Structure formats: C-alpha cells, structure tokens
C-alpha cells in the first residue's frame, strides 16, 4: 500500500444550498512512497480541494483517505499526529509569514511538533541551506525580504517539519522565470536528498514536465489519468480538449518525429532537447 491512498473520495461544497458543487468526485488513488508526482488540471478541476484532504484540512463528504496506512478521521485525536506526516505548502505561502525573524518563522512548525530547541535549530539550519537562504538572512524580518526569498522561507517552514510527504500548491505562481527555476530546482534537490514523496500541483505543463516523474491529471473533479510522464503526454489530443497543453518542446519533437526524424526518448525539457539536437546533428555529420 502506498503512502497516500484514497478510496472513492468525494467532496461537495455547499451541500443543501443552491451553490452546491462537487469538487472531488469518486477519486481512488494510490501514490507510492518516494515518488515525485505532478498534479495538473485547469482552474477549478479540484486539484486544490483534493490535496487539502491529504492532511485532513478537509473532511471527505464520502470515501476514505489513508496516510501511511492509517485512515484519516478514524480517530480524531490522531489527526494532528498524521498531519505532521504531510507537509502542505499553500499557494502564495509567503502570505502566511508572521514572525519577527525568518528563523522564528521557520521554527513555528517544528515548535508545534514539540521538538527540542536543539533539534529545531538543526532543522532550521538544514532547510535554510536546502532552500538557499544565507545564514545572515535568518535574523532578518521576513517582511524585508524579496518576493522569491519570502516564498523560499515559507517553503522552508514546511520542509523543516520533515514530513513524509511534501505537497506544494502552485509553488511558482507569480514568480519570474528565474525565481521559478530556482523553486523547481530546490524541490528536485530536496526530493533527491531526502527521498520523500513530493506532490507538485500546477497548471503549467512546462513546470511539471521538467520536475516530476509521474503525473496525475484532474478534469472536472475526476482523475483523468495517473501515469508516468510519457504516457500522459502521449494523450495530447485529450489534454488539449481539457484546456491543458503538452509542453511546447514536446510538441515540437513529436512533430519532428512525424516528419521522419528518428530518436528514442520523449522530450520534456529544453535542456534535454538541446542535448538531443546536438547529438542528432553530430550523428548526421558522421
């Protein structure tokens, strides 16, 4: 059994009012430990609602959620405990910063877990290094930092809790390309270093394609498919009809293949595409 499992998970907003809306409809999932998964879907497809179930912020209208083999809401007193296993980084997480210093803000989560000061300190320094925050920034007020730095502090605040699963909801929203690459890079690094499960919610195929190995596609509150990158991108026509697109570079290379150029792999990132083109050119030249 995977680290996150759902059985027929359904969530309805505003039950019994004229504004009733099914946000998640009969989702059954099984996500393995150590996986790095991208969750994509257009706005309102139920991605954000789905992930809020994974740490018990929302209670399913019907169906079950299991984290690490334990059912959420089966025993209310265990909820907080289980919640610490799943770190959730919301959209625009920098809006939740509140402490006087960056150090104290990152410490908020670990302190709530009841960790010792020594352990908290170790985790703060480690995550600060992971997200690329210099030591001297730790004593600054989080409100003095730049947008990208604030976001990294907020992400560090969740990472410092060392959850078994890290979920990030649109972590790159509103950042410039450099900030975006930086965040995606640190997520990848974190995954490589810690080996924990990472879920990345996004509507940018480009972001997802270069970061994750498996993709969960949500459409109209249902799971359209959950599979590895290449099989998801192979359904480019269906994705387009859902208002999603295959990464541009993948489309270019699909077209090249149709034109008769031979290469084996699927292409998801510009970097990889560059290497491939260089290699193909070198082969051609002999």
């Amino acid at each position, binding site marked *: 059994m995977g680290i996150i499992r759902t059985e027929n998970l359904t969530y309805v907003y505003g039950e019994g009012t004229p504004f009733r809306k099914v946000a998640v409809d009969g989702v059954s999932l099984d996500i393995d430990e150590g996986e790095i998964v991208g969750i994509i879907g257009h706005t309102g497809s139920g991605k954000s609602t789905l992930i809020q179930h994974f740490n018990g912020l929302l209670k399913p209208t019907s169906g079950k959620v299991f984290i690490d083999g334990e059912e959420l809401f089966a025993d209310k007193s265990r909820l907080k405990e289980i919640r610490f296993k799943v770190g959730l980084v919301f959209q625009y997480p920098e*809006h939740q910063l509140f402490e006087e210093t960056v150090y104290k803000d990152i410490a*908020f*989560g670990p302190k709530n877990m009841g960790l010792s000061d020594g352990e908290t300190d170790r985790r703060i320094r480690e995550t600060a290094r992971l997200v690329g925050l210099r030591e001297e920034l730790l004593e600054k007020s989080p409100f003095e930092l730049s947008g990208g730095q604030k976001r990294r502090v907020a992400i560090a605040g*969740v990472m410092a809790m060392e959850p078994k699963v890290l979920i990030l909801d649109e972590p790159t929203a509103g950042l410039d390309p450099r900030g975006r690459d930086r965040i995606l890079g640190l997520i990848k690094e974190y995954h490589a270093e810690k080996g924990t499960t990472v879920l990345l919610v996004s509507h940018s195929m480009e972001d997802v394609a270069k970061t994750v190995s498996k993709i969960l596609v949500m459409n109209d509150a249902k799971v359209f498919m959950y599979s590895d990158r290449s099989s998801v991108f192979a359904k480019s026509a269906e994705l387009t009809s859902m208002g999603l697109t295959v990464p541009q570079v993948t489309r270019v290379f699909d077209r090249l293949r149709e034109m008769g150029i031979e290469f084996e792999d699927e292409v998801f990132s510009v970097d990889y595409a560059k290497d491939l083109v260089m290699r193909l050119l070198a082969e051609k030249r002999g």
Partner: protein
Amino acid sequence: MIKDITLGQFFPGKSVIHRLDPRIKLLLTVIYIVMLFVADTFAGLGAGVLFMLISFLLSGIPLKMMLKSIKPLLPIILFTGILNLFFISTGDILFEWGIIKITSGGVTTMIFMASRIVLLICGTSLLTYTTSPITLTDAIERILSPLKVIKFPAHEIAMMMTIALRFIPTLIEETDKIMSAQKARGADLESGNIIRRAKALIPILIPLFVSAFRRAEELALAMECRCYRGGEGRTRLKQLKTAPRDYVATAVAVLFLAAVIVLNRFSPL
C-alpha cells in the same frame, strides 16, 4: 465553514420590491419601523404584519431565507420575552407560584415585544435581501448629500462603505486560507485555555493585517491610476430615478402608518 457567514445577504431577483428605488426603500423601512413602534394595540400591530406580509409576498424571497435571518436572534427574542413575562405585574394574575407571578399584562407585553422584534428583523432583512449592498450605499450617499452644505463628507463615507462591503468576502476567504496554512504547520486553534487561544490567533491576525494593508495600498494606487479625485464632479453609470411605483409604495406605507395611528385611538384591543 467560515464562508457560511453572510453579511451582504442580497438575494437577486426582479420583483417589484427589488426594482423599487433604493432611497424609497430606505424611506419605507423607516416608515415601517416607526409604524411598529407607534402601534400599541394588537390591531395596529396587525396592520404592521399585513404590511410586512404584502411586501414579503411581492418580493418573491423564499420563506426559508426569512426564517434563516430570524434564527440567530432567537435567543434574544426569547430572553426579552421571558423577562417581560416575569417582571411585568400589571393586569390580572394568571399564575402564581412562590415569587413567580405571571400576569395578563406580562403575557400581552411578551407577545407584543416578541412580535415587534420579529417584524423588525423581517423588515430590515427584506431590505437587505432585495437591495444589493452597492445600491444601498448609493442610496445612502444620495440621502446624505444635502448635508454636504455643512461639509459632511457624504461621498467619502459612501465610498468607504462600498469598499468595506466589497472586501468582506475577500477578507473572509483570506482568513480561511491563512487558517488552513497555519493549521498545516501544526497551529492548534481549538484547544487550551483562553490565553493560549488568544496567542494562537497571532499567526492568523498578523498575516491578515499585512494582507489587508497590502490590498488597501494596491486599491488606492489603482484608484489613483484611474484618476479618482473624490466625489466632486463625478457622474454615475446608474442614475437613481424614481418611478410611479415608488410613489405608490410610499403612499401605501403612509396610509398604513395613518391606519396604525387611527387604530391606536379607536381599537378596543
């Protein structure tokens, strides 16, 4: 969920009541309130009920919505009712047990007070159900505008009210989001004594204030970019115009008020 709190409880519709000029509607509500407080006989109160019933039926607002608006105030209604029942000692004694004495005067006052409060809530709810908050502030601005002569900032106050109303749902949503985010970081909002709970609010209040200030600044900038310079010389997209139905409605309300006064005089009850 926190989102269920409704403040702007506008219920869109196309009924006669919806289409009345908001200024007239405000005026009618004032007449109606006066009516309720002038009435000191059951017949007079009955006229108030009739007026309410007619407006309610014309408005097409579901009965459920009306009951929903009374529900939160039920404890207050019961409380005042019971107080009146026990502490008024005029009229015949209907029931006596130890120091508890219930008199006919007490019963009458209780029924009177309770129905007055219920009618009051129904009337004002009907106003907010059938008038969008924005039109309501517009009406307030127009009603207060004669006071500009004595330098009363009618436009500014109306603008402030409009902005405040506009941002209530936004800030509620924001609070919801911040609460979820802090809960995800292990914040405990539900347990502990009052001091611990107050302390637990800090991680929510600080980000909320920060975001409110940020929004205020952005809004001020956006308004300035669109050359907002206060109310001086501003024209409106939607002009408030009175129609024949407004005069009819006012006439009906005044007639009802007159009826209540007459009934006070001559009704035996």
